[in-house]
């Protein structure tokens, strides 16, 4: 049960009772990269938001187990502290909150030893550089006025400092050009800590940048097929229709 994130027979509804996720099972081991694909509206983002604990959604049955611990109903921040990370498809802007100060506070919350502001800034700057993010980004307000690409990179920058055990990345690649994709995935592939990843994408090209261990196809709230990276080629050839 160690080094595993298990999604067990998970059902998710909206607050108003509309069922969206229909019994999903996934097992992600540390070091593995799982790719989740599916047409728009298949419930991928709902699944990821619900796993993190978004108040719009309700897990009606099933379990989320992180390293053997049932965290299904844990508060959002506790899930984060136990090592679950959600990379947002549309990162949220928070006016007046300095990016570096916010992230240092978040990092300090997660670890017992506190990092000094100066040391933290230096680490942050060097990581930002690797992502080809401008230095000034860390002095700006959280996601405010960031370009689409900067927002996506800033999510991964946060991930690299928070060092979670498992990351769910909701379309980290959407809106990025080829160069940005290269930087982003080169950075992800070279993270200096063990990580299991569930990566949601619409982009088959992603396989040029990342080595996928498993590919899953989600349609209408269910995972209808799982396989290795060859599954992506199948989708590329004939679309999702044949899986429906």
């Amino acid at each position, binding site marked *: 049960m160690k080094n595993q994130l298990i999604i067990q027979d998970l059902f998710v509804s909206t607050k108003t009772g509309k069922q969206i996720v229909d019994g999903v099972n996934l097992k992600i081991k540390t070091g593995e990269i799982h790719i989740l694909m599916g047409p728009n509206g298949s419930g991928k983002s709902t699944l990821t938001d619900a796993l993190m604990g978004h108040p719009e959604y309700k897990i009606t049955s099933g379990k989320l187990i992180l390293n053997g611990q049932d965290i299904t109903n844990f508060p959002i*921040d506790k899930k984060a502290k136990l090592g679950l990370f959600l990379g*947002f498809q549309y990162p949220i802007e*928070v*006016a007046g*909150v300095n990016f570096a100060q916010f992230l240092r*506070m978040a990092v300090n919350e997660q670890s017992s030893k506190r990092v000094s502001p100066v040391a933290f800034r230096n680490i942050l700057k060097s990581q930002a550089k690797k992502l080809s993010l401008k230095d000034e980004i860390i002095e700006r307000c959280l996601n405010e006025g960031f370009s689409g690409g900067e927002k996506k990179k800033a999510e991964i920058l946060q991930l690299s400092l928070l060092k979670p055990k498992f990351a769910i990345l909701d379309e980290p690649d959407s809106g990025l050009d080829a160069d940005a994709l290269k930087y982003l995935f080169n950075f992800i592939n070279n993270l200096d800590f063990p990580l299991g990843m569930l990566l949601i994408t619409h982009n088959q090209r992603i396989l040029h940048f990342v080595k996928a261990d498993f590919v899953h196809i989600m349609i209408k709230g269910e995972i209808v097929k799982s396989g290795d990276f060859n599954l992506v080629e199948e989708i590329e050839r004939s679309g999702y229709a044949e899986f429906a």
Partner: protein
Amino acid sequence: MLNLPKGLNSKTVEAISHYKNEPDWMRRFRLKALGLFLKKSMPLWGADLSGINLDDIYYYISPTDKKFKSWDEVPKQIKDTYDKIGIPEAEKKFLAGVGAMYDSEVIYHNLKKQWEDKGVIFVSIDTALKIYPDIFKQYFSTVISPDDNKFASLNSAVWSGGSFVYIPKGVHVDIPLQAYFRINAVSMGQFERTLIIAEEGSYLTYIEGCSAPIYSKDSLHAAVVEIIVKKGARVRYTTIQNWSSNVYNLVTKRAIVEEEGICEWVDGNLGSKVTMKYPSVYLKGKGSKGEILSLAFASRNQIQDAGGKAVHLAPYTSSTITSKSVSVHGGRTSYRGFVKINHGAKGSKSLVRCSALILDSVSRSDTYPTNVIEEEDVTLGHEATVSKIGEQQIFYLMSRGLNETQASSMIVNGFIEPVIKQLPLEYAVELNKLIDLSMEGSLG
């Protein structure tokens, strides 16, 4: 030592004036103001003031007759009070002078020699009446008449304590003068009065802050602040008020700004039971400017009725009113603003921006803007936004490991950041701390 019983009548006023050994004109001024106060009705608008029992208030209390020239002489009890408020030792370094008000008396004054050499006067207002009677009489009550409103009448009748600042022509005082106020007696009224005169081309930054613990009985604070900004002068007056949650804080603040002069009010209101405060600029001279930045934070059982007032009396004048308010735990904030552009004030501009953040479903915020425009060739802008704290923002911040309180604190502190960055560091830090405490529900 003068200690008067509760309640207000002409004897109270006579006794205060007699005790202070005031000239006859001031005694008569006070009595006339008392007459106006008794005649005027309570305001028919704004917050509910029915909880004020005017007979149950001390109108004068004197804790000490002594004034202190050095920090060492200040009694331990008072120093402890400052420690609790969190005024750091380091502050002395960049303060030109400290006027600390304890009860109704200014007890400590220390103005550095460098300013005295330039002719700057910074003394308690009672002292100014004695030592600088001519200049005092020339300006006192010329900005706010005792007839202005019921609480200005009250203040005019029983005023005691406060600061007097005179900046001579061309002199720049860019180190903040600072005064700390504090209510320390049950049911005690505090009626300080501040008068600032900035001569032509001078510059002053004045900061006052106050913080008070919680008391069992209602208390009334009715202050008057008058500022005269002469041609080409610039004054910034910053206030952070955090009265205890039983205080009615009803303050009249106004500046008259002459040609090309600039007056800026930065006004932060955190505490009190009810605050009614609308710093005003009367733009009297051509090309003069007024800026009002108002911040209100209302928590449990608190009403913050705040805003600003700009009256354009001359051509090419401009005003900006920016209001930010936060309501939480059932607190209520109101923005109340008044902009008037007189006939003939052509080419004038005014911009009002108010934004309110409401943190929960039991809290409330209202906006009451009034614009009176008598001139055609003017520009007037008004932006108002009300937002509830974003579920998405909370979710986002919590997904990074912050708990709900930390997340909301962060959002609130971010929201008021445009005001915070106008404050000296110590204030900014203190304010952020106070907001964190409020969010945890451990205040108020």
